[in-house]
């Protein structure tokens, strides 16, 4: 009993699901009943669909409890801690019992997320105990040169995890080649892709690995100053990073002559982003750090030559940096063992949408999309028909069901017209309208376009107008062709990644779901029964009880009928507001 640890997952989603209250309750009972166990905090355990999560580790094994509320917490303390009998029906993972979620964990290889959910992110001791800062100690002790590190990273095959997929080692080499006294290293933590939250989880769950990755990067390219550009929408990540930076300074991992290596001075600070998707783009991010509007600049010169304050600058994504310490400690070969020929290692995906087991999964490159969705993700909610998966957010595209055997690596995903992106994987079922999905992404990119390039600024607006028209039943012949024409012009006429990729969601949905576009335009019907203006509402005579609720609520008086007699909707008056459908208690309104 003395060795019993109770660990609560306090990441942003855990807290949102009520983990903070559970933690307080556990603390309260421990004090009130004078129980003897160690209460610890950790961050995202990755099983977001079962939050809040509480793990109990005692002499007999480890037990992870899911969907714990205050009531369950009391019960778990009473039965498990006081009477040593674990409550099997609440357990989602344990080394003692076979769990139904076994596949969710077995399919994963945790490198980036190695510490997430295992350590207290606010404790540098926890990080060091689990092998943290070993990589820079190794560099210091064995006097590994910058060139050797760059070679290791090149050999590992690590490619930029922010979406671009540019080899990290090569990027470092370019920055290293530049002989300038002042160089900068920037961590891009401006995770703006709607539907992606892996960077947030790493920063919240393992901030020290981020710092360690950056310190190694700084050593390799000769940078003296680092910046973490983090979105202001992630207050918890910023808080934990700040704690980590202070701790790292105290231990001498940041500052002057780090690790006794003479002349290796490095320190870093956090820059809070102010909310602009375009700042995920390297040159726009640099402009934003300099305090300007986040508008991209022309390349070349590339940031490796002239970046922040016109000095050589290296920018990597959060996930990329988190991999670095592991590669240094375990070697390039250990990393390159995972993955495919051209895409090595693992990738973290944020699995969301209409999926049963939504959460953060880290899988080796080369696994098929189908395996991620069905083996790890447990399939579609309500066992509906799987329609498509959206990869890469607003810059990416939809991969249809019949291509779900596609393996995840940069080149295979690119071949479908989607992109790997930062790792958002939004699963859609038969009720998701693909035209509306394209409209949704265009609305996003149109709003987020910085306005510098005409094609991106005006072109996305025109595309959005056409798509909105189509979803409202005012599509015309030739609209699809016009969309395609605009799409290629925007791709060619834009300076940065935002504009060059903005048409992707439209192009891929046209490619794979052209029939849905045609149904909207020609038949004025939405096959997924989603676009409101294209729906027809009808009363099922046998089911209608004549309660008059729909009749009273109808804003255009399109429903007629006497009390206790089935009502009728007059189609010529109906404005498809859906009020009757949501108000009917007897499911007697049919939509098609």
């Amino acid at each position, binding site marked *: 009993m003395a060795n019993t640890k109770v660990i609560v997952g306090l990441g942003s989603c855990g807290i949102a*699901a009520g983990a903070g209250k559970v933690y307080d309750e556990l603390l309260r009972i421990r004090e009130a009943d004078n129980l003897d166990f160690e209460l610890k905090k950790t961050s995202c355990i990755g099983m977001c669909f079962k939050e809040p999560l509480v793990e109990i580790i005692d002499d007999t094994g480890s037990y992870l409890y899911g969907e714990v509320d205050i009531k369950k917490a009391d019960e778990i303390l009473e039965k498990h801690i006081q009477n040593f009998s674990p409550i099997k029906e609440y357990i989602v993972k344990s080394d003692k019992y076979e769990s139904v979620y076994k596949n969710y964990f077995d399919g994963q290889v945790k490198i980036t997320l190695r510490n997430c959910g295992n350590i207290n992110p606010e404790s540098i001791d926890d990080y060091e105990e689990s092998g943290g800062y070993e990589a820079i100690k190794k560099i210091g002790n064995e006097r590994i040169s910058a060139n050797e590190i760059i070679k290791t990273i090149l050999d590992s095959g690590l490619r930029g995890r922010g979406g671009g997929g540019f080899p990290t080692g090569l990027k470092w080499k370019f920055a290293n080649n530049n002989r300038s006294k002042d160089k900068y290293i920037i961590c891009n933590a401006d995770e703006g892709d*709607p539907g*992606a939250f892996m960077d947030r989880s790493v920063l919240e769950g393992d901030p020290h690995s981020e710092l360690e990755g950056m310190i190694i990067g700084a050593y390799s390219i000769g940078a003296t100053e680092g910046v973490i550009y983090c979105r*202001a929408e992630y207050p918890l990540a910023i808080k934990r990073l700040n704690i980590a930076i202070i701790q790292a300074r105290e231990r001498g991992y940041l500052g002057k002559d780090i690790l006794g290596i003479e002349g290796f001075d490095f320190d870093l600070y956090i*820059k*809070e982003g*102010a909310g602009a998707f375009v700042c995920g783009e390297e040159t726009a991010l640099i402009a934003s750090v300099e305090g300007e509007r986040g508008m991209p600049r022309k390349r070349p010169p590339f940031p490796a030559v002239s970046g922040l304050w016109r000095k050589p600058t290296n920018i990597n994504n959060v996930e990329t940096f988190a991999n670095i310490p592991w590669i240094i400690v375990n070697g390039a070969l250990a990393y390159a063992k995972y993955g495919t020929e051209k895409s090595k290692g693992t990738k973290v995906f944020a699995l*969301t949408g209409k999926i049963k087991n*939504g959460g953060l999964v880290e899988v080796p490159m080369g696994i098929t999309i189908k395996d991620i969705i069905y083996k790890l993700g447990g399939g579609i909610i309500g066992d509906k028909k799987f329609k498509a998966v*959206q990869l890469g957010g607003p810059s990416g595209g939809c991969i249809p069901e019949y291509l779900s055997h596609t393996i995840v690596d940069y080149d295979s995903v690119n071949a479908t017209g989607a992109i790997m992106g930062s790792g958002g994987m939004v699963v859609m079922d038969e009720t998701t309208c693909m035209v509306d999905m394209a409209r949704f992404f265009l609305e996003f990119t149109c709003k987020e376009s910085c306005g510098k390039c005409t094609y991106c600024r005006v072109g996305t607006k025109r595309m959005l107008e056409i798509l909105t028209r189509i979803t409202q039943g005012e599509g015309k012949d030739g609209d699809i062709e016009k969309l395609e024409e605009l799409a290629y012009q925007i791709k060619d006429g834009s300076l940065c990644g935002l504009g060059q990729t903005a048409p992707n969601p439209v192009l891929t949905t046209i490619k794979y779901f052209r029939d849905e576009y045609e149904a909207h335009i020609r038949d004025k019907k939405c096959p997924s029964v989603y676009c409101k203006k294209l729906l027809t509402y009808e009363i099922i005579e046998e089911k209608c009880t004549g309660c008059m609720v729909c009749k009273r609520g109808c804003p255009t008086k399109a429903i007629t009928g006497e009390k206790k007699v089935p009502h009728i909707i007059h189609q010529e008056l109906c404005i498809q507001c859906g009020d009757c459908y949501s108000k009917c208690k007897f499911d007697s309104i049919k939509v098609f």
Partner: protein
Amino acid sequence: MRIERINKKEYTQEKALTGISSPESIVDLKLIKPLLKKYKGKKGNLIPVLQGTQNIYGFIPEEAMLFIARETGIQVSDMYGVATFYAQFRLKPVGKYIIKMCHGTACHVQNVKAVTEDLQNFLGIKDGETTPDNIFTLETVACLGCCSLAPVMMIGDDTHGKLSGKKAVDVIKEFRRKETLSQKSKLTENISKN
């Protein structure tokens, strides 16, 4: 594109330039002095200064912009350009609670649109507007990063997940109830004091 224009209202440039706020003004310019001291002359200071200003007032008042310009030499046009570019900055006052409705992909797929509509109907305001009692401001945001709890909204630092229209309205009702209670207790306090 991101454009938000300042409401054309009357202001006296003189006040802003001297740094003395009139008694009826809600903007106390003294409050930003420590902030300016911290960032004055540092490169890349514009965004942190604006973020700090917004933390103090809840939005960036025009008077504050003019004052910062005088104190630091940053051009008002630059400040306005940056403030209108980033989604975080507001040029108008907001309600006591800001309801951030997530309109990320995962929330969109889980039909956050219907939830937002219910909330808009309940509050009687549209996106970006504030209720007449200055309690709630409704804002749609890109992604809050709690996708597995979609649809999600954030009020203050609290995140509310797995919403339906009814659940979202219930959360707001609870806030309203608490607000009325605290106002009542304040009222009774004042009465007993007098």
